């Protein structure tokens, strides 16, 4: 390994003193050194002013590699360190810690990417070597301007708010409660359980959904440290990581626990409304219980349907029902917030595969209700009285949409993503149908089948063995659903089967099931209140899918479950548990430490023109009207730096990315500074 050591210079720990720069260039096995002449690079960089040490190493990230850095920092009083290796996304933090161990401020470090962005993409050794040299030279110019930084310390209130009372929210709440934190769960509906309560049997185990949900609900509602608010509406949110203040409006339930004869009371109610729990397959009373064993166990009143006729009050003998209740607002303090609002089902457009044109066309969710032993038909498969012989399933309704073929959603986008759960759910339902009603002919129309999870493929095999007919259609020419002219069956599905090399098929159908996809909820209020990042698929966007998968960019906000994208119950609970443990790790400390790369207003340069007040996505900037200058809230600032580019006075700096640092980098890349080979 080449070493180029110069011993001139003043020792010190950054911040003002003469920089003493150490450069460590990684071979990464041969990943880098096979293409880049790392020794020549080390030599040239070693000649730059202020570079007192420059070397190469087989694996700088290895223990010996890090040990070398520590040793040289101490031995040569290095006060700036550059590692040229893989992408900083992988090891930047590793090396920061190395600096810290050596007693050097960890922010006097620069990580130069010479693998992903040089050796792996530039075949020509000479050009690759030149490029690596340029990039490191730029890093040298940059680190000259680095100053020691300290992490921000923000006190944490040891509590969590969970938004959403579905399986994800409840799981996260329980895990956090068990770890000893105060948790508040808010649910907009009158009952807990969310989507899971509406499901029948779950793949891969085939267990009943509500049987799995029940114990979780019991655990949560009995939990000493968990508070639950149903009928809760988000009103306001202020504060930031460590000390969020959320105001929710609690709408009256109309019924309390003292109601004894719920059944009789519900029976007398004259008002009816479509039952969303059964996806509109049935109607329910204005005072209702969604299902057996729901929580809270006492009914709620659907105020939209209720006419306040008072019959229920009479039937209840005056006890337990109050039709005149008023909403109350409560403020909830929490150190962190978990987003667990879940998702919605895609509602097909009228006429999409005959939906809402032919009564024989239902969604997969509706079918699940029909299959449910506790469902509207007690599990019997009847559709307005007719016996059913032929059942068809169509996949990817509302998912995997194609530009030009599928009309865009109201926001102009199309759902080009896979909803992930529908294939397996479809096959599970199809196989159950075939088992329960062997005489059925079942046809499965799909563009593609994705049974990706453990045990999922088994459903496909079973379906094949059961003789379910698979027909693969061409997305360019999706199936057409029409009335059967011959009247054999109410419907006929026409399409071209690619499995039989483009054979035209016409299938008579009694019941057509649309495997509808999953879409993000309308979360406008939530997104606005908490400054959430949203993806182009409208689901909430994590910081980084691998590195920080359950965190939002705004500090203290976590993603629990399918608010982040289509997930089945298994994935949802896993994600929720992950979010809970991440959140717990954070609120377990008295203080949270945040990266210092935030914006700061240099008061004497600020003209108070207010233009930065428009810009901050996190409302972290306010104006001190007494001083007539802008002020950045350290806890709210996420360090995007947009305000820095905005300020017409250059009065805002961003630690780690201030103009001097970035510009010096640019100049160096262009061969301006520092001059080459000064002390050569």
């Amino acid at each position, binding site marked *: 390994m080449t070493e180029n050591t110069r011993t001139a210079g003043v020792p010190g720990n950054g911040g003002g003193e003469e920089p003493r720069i150490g450069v460590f260039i990684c071979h990464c096995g041969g990943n880098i050194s096979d293409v880049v002449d790392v020794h020549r690079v080390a030599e040239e960089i070693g000649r730059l002013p202020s570079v007192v040490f420059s070397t190469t190493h087989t694996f700088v990230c290895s223990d010996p590699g890090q040990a070398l850095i520590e040793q040289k920092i101490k031995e040569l009083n290095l006060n700036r360190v550059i590692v040229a290796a893989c*992408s900083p996304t992988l090891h930047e933090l590793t090396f920061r810690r190395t600096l810290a161990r050596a007693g050097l401020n960890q922010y006097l470090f620069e990580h130069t990417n010479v693998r992903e962005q040089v050796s792996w993409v530039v075949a*020509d050794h*000479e050009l690759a070597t*030149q490029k690596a040299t340029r990039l490191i030279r730029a890093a040298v110019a940059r680190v000259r301007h680095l100053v020691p930084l300290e992490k921000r310390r923000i006190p944490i209130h040891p509590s969590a708010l969970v938004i959403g009372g579905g399986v994800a929210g409840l799981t996260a709440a329980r895990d956090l409660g068990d770890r000893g934190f105060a948790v508040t769960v808010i649910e907009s509906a009158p009952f807990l359980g969310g989507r899971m309560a509406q499901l029948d049997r779950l793949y891969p185990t085939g267990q009943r959904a509500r049987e799995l949900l029940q114990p979780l609900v019991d655990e949560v509602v009995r939990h000493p440290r968990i508070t639950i608010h149903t009928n809760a509406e988000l009103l306001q949110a202020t504060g930031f990581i460590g000390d969020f203040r959320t105001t929710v409006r609690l709408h009256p339930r109309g019924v309390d626990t003292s109601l004894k004869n719920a059944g009789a009371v519900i029976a007398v109610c004259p008002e009816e409304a479509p039952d969303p729990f059964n996806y509109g397959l049935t109607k329910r009373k204005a005072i209702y219980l969604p299902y057996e064993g729901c929580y809270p166990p006492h009914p709620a009143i659907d105020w939209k349907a209720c006419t306040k006729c008072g019959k229920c009050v009479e039937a209840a003998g005056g006890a337990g029902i109050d039709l005149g209740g008023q909403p109350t607002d409560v403020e909830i303090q929490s150190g962190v917030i978990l987003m667990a609002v879940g998702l919605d089902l895609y509602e097909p457009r009228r006429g999409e595969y005959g939906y809402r044109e032919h009564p024989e066309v239902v969604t997969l969710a509706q079918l699940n209700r029909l299959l449910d032993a506790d469902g509207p038909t007690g599990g019997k498969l009847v559709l307005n009285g007719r016996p059913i012989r032929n059942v068809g399933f169509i996949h990817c309704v509302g998912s995997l949409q194609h530009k030009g073929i599928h009309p865009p959603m109201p926001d102009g986008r199309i759902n080009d993503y896979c909803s992930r759960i529908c294939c397996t759910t479809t096959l599970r339902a199809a196989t159950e149908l075939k088992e329960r009603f062997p005489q059925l002919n079942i046809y499965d129309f799909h563009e593609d089948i994705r049974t990706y999870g453990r045990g999922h493929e088994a459903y496909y095999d079973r379906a094949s063995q059961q003789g379910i007919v698979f027909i693969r259609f061409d997305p360019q020419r999706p199936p057409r659903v029409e009335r059967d002219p011959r009247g054999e069956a109410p419907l006929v599905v026409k399409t071209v089967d690619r499995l039989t090399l483009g054979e035209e098929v016409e299938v008579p159908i009694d019941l057509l099931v649309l495997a509808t996809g999953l879409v993000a909820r309308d979360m406008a209020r939530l997104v606005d209140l908490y400054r959430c990042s949203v993806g182009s698929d409208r689901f909430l966007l994590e910081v980084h899918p691998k590195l920080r998968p359950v965190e939002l960019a705004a500090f203290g906000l976590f993603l629990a479950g399918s608010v982040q994208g289509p997930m089945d119950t298994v994935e949802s609970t896993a994600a929720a548990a992950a979010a809970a443990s991440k959140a717990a790790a954070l609120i377990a400390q008295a203080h949270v430490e945040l990266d210092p790369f935030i914006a700061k207003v240099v008061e004497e340069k600020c003209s108070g023109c207010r233009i930065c007040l428009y*810009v901050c996505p996190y409302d972290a900037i306010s104006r001190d009207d007494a001083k007539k200058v802008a002020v950045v809230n350290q806890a709210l600032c996420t360090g*995007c730096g*947009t305000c820095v580019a905005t300020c017409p006075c250059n009065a805002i700096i961003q630690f780690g990315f201030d103009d001097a640092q970035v510009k010096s980098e640019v100049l160096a890349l262009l*061969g301006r500074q520092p001059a080459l080979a000064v002390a050569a």
Partner: protein
Amino acid sequence: MTQVGTQTQQPGPGRTTWEPRIIGFLCYWCSYTGADSAGTARMQYPPNVDIVKVMCSGRIDPELITTAFANGADGVMVLGCHIGDCHYISGNHKTMVRMPLMRRLLAELGLEPERFRHEWVSAAEGEKFSKLVAEMTEQVRALGPLNWPRLLYERGVGHGMDLKAWGE
């Protein structure tokens, strides 16, 4: 003049013919990661675009772009997250406004529009990234060296200007 640009821009032995020198300002969360994924997939592309990393494309101060051109860049690229995918909610909305305006301004100052390019590249679009770099390199190569400081000097602007950096 070609030589001038080349010598300082391409230190060390090897090529002496002129190579386009392009600065790419990339946001960290999407475009920079996109560049990484191009690397992970071992996509080969020209080495002429040198990447300067910022956290969000909204941080890309137009002054950085003029700094690059004023100091000898032949081209500048600005890459950020797609609209709607910004890690910082709306940081790239500012980029979306600044860059078209910047493009007009640069053109009016006498700079070929092809020397400045602004695109959206997501973390997954390694291929798009490598394509863009290749395209940009070729379109700048076709235009030839810019070497703005030299040019201004010849126009009589900034008599006091130090051209040493350009080998004079």
